[in-house]
């Protein structure tokens, strides 16, 4: 009887070996793979990398709306976070504005003092009394010496020219747009530290200045010949803002790219 059981056990054992041999080997292999971090990483990393690439390539379409809603929700629920994000930028803008206003004030005081005490002022007063020529007209004529020589509207990242206006024949304007962007990018990359991002706003050479006004997707570069006072500069800045608001805010980026000549005409109308 015992012999019969032994025989059955042996046969069962053999059957188990036949059925589970391959499977057991696979299980052992998987166990080794799971316990060996390096081997596991070798298998999984390419799959994960591929997956990350797919997500990255189509991130905007897949998750854009969700991310936007999370950001909006977070900012709405946490005004202090919003303040934390925008306050450095606001600080810089306020600092810049105050600096500009101080310069205008200083220039105005200097001019008033100079005007009241100078020989020219006395001469102008006599001239005004005798011939009716107003001194203010003469001062305005003096300011007129600063002249807009060229205006460029340039796509901020690529440096592609979106429109331009120039009083004289100049070298290829597309090239100017590219080189200005390269110089601007170089200076901003070289000088900006950490999260403190600031924009290049002026390049000066000889009697010329290139004033740069930065917007989110583009910037306006105005080449000025002659001396420009802080108040004139402020007026020009307002004019650029007005131009951007009236002429560029209603058309999309793709339209801007396809309407270079139209924008050039507008620039001429505004800045000639």
């Amino acid at each position: 009887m015992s012999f019969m059981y032994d025989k059955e056990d042996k046969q069962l054992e053999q059957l188990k070996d036949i059925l589970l041999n391959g499977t057991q080997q696979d299980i052992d292999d998987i166990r080794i793979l799971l316990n060996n971090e390096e081997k596991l990483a070798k298998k999984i990393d390419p799959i994960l990398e591929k997956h990350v690439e797919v997500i990255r390539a189509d991130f905007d379409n897949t998750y854009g709306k969700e991310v936007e809603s999370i950001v909006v929700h977070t900012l709405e629920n946490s005004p202090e976070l919003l303040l934390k994000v925008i306050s450095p930028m606001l600080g810089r803008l306020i600092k810049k504005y105050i600096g500009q206003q101080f310069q205008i004030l200083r220039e105005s005081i200097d001019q008033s003092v100079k005007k009241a005490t100078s020989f020219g002022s006395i001469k102008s007063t006599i001239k005004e009394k005798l011939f009716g020529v107003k001194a203010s007209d003469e001062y305005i004529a003096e300011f007129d010496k600063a002249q807009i020589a060229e205006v460029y509207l340039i796509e901020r990242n690529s440096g592609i020219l979106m429109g331009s206006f120039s009083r004289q024949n100049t070298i290829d304007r597309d090239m100017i747009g590219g080189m200005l962007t390269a110089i601007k990018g170089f200076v901003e990359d070289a000088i900006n530290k950490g999260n403190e991002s600031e924009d290049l706003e002026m390049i000066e050479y000889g009697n010329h200045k290139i004033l740069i006004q930065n917007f989110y997707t583009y910037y306006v570069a105005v080449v000025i010949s002659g001396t420009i006072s802080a108040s004139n500069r402020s007026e020009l800045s307002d004019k650029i803002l007005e131009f951007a608001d009236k002429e560029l805010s209603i058309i999309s980026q793709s339209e801007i790219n396809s309407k270079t000549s139209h924008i050039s005409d507008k620039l001429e109308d505004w800045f000639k």
Partner: protein
Amino acid sequence: MISKKVILTGSFGVGKTSLFNKFVYSKFSDKYLTTIGVKVNKKVIKVGGEEMSILLWDIAGEVSQDKVPVSYFLGASGIIYVFDLTRAVTTKNMKEDIEYLRRLLPNGVIKIVGNKSDLVGQDIIEKVIAELALPCDLVTSAKTGENVEELFTIIGEELLVA
């Protein structure tokens, strides 16, 4: 007219400026003058019956691409990564460089180009290409003009559909 920004980049002395000059001015010089910063120029090419203005940025060579100011790459539609077929060292960081550039421009057209084919034989060219970490798209010679126009036509065609 469509305008596209294309970057010429790679290690120093690989012939980026020579390719730039050959393409824009149809000129070649044996003199080596290192590029300082960046040089920008443009050329209008005809692709698919349309005119395309290529704004070409010739960037100063760097051993590794993460040393190039990031702003130079922003807004680019295409990148030509040039290596020197005669100097294996210029291919050393190719894989990392291309991965870095792809991260910066996920939708940009990137072409890997082996330059100075006039200085080596076909057998050497095949050997160099076989040993690269990534496939080489085109072999060029700024000196003889081999494949220079073709390179920009290929890029232009790909940019047109991108």
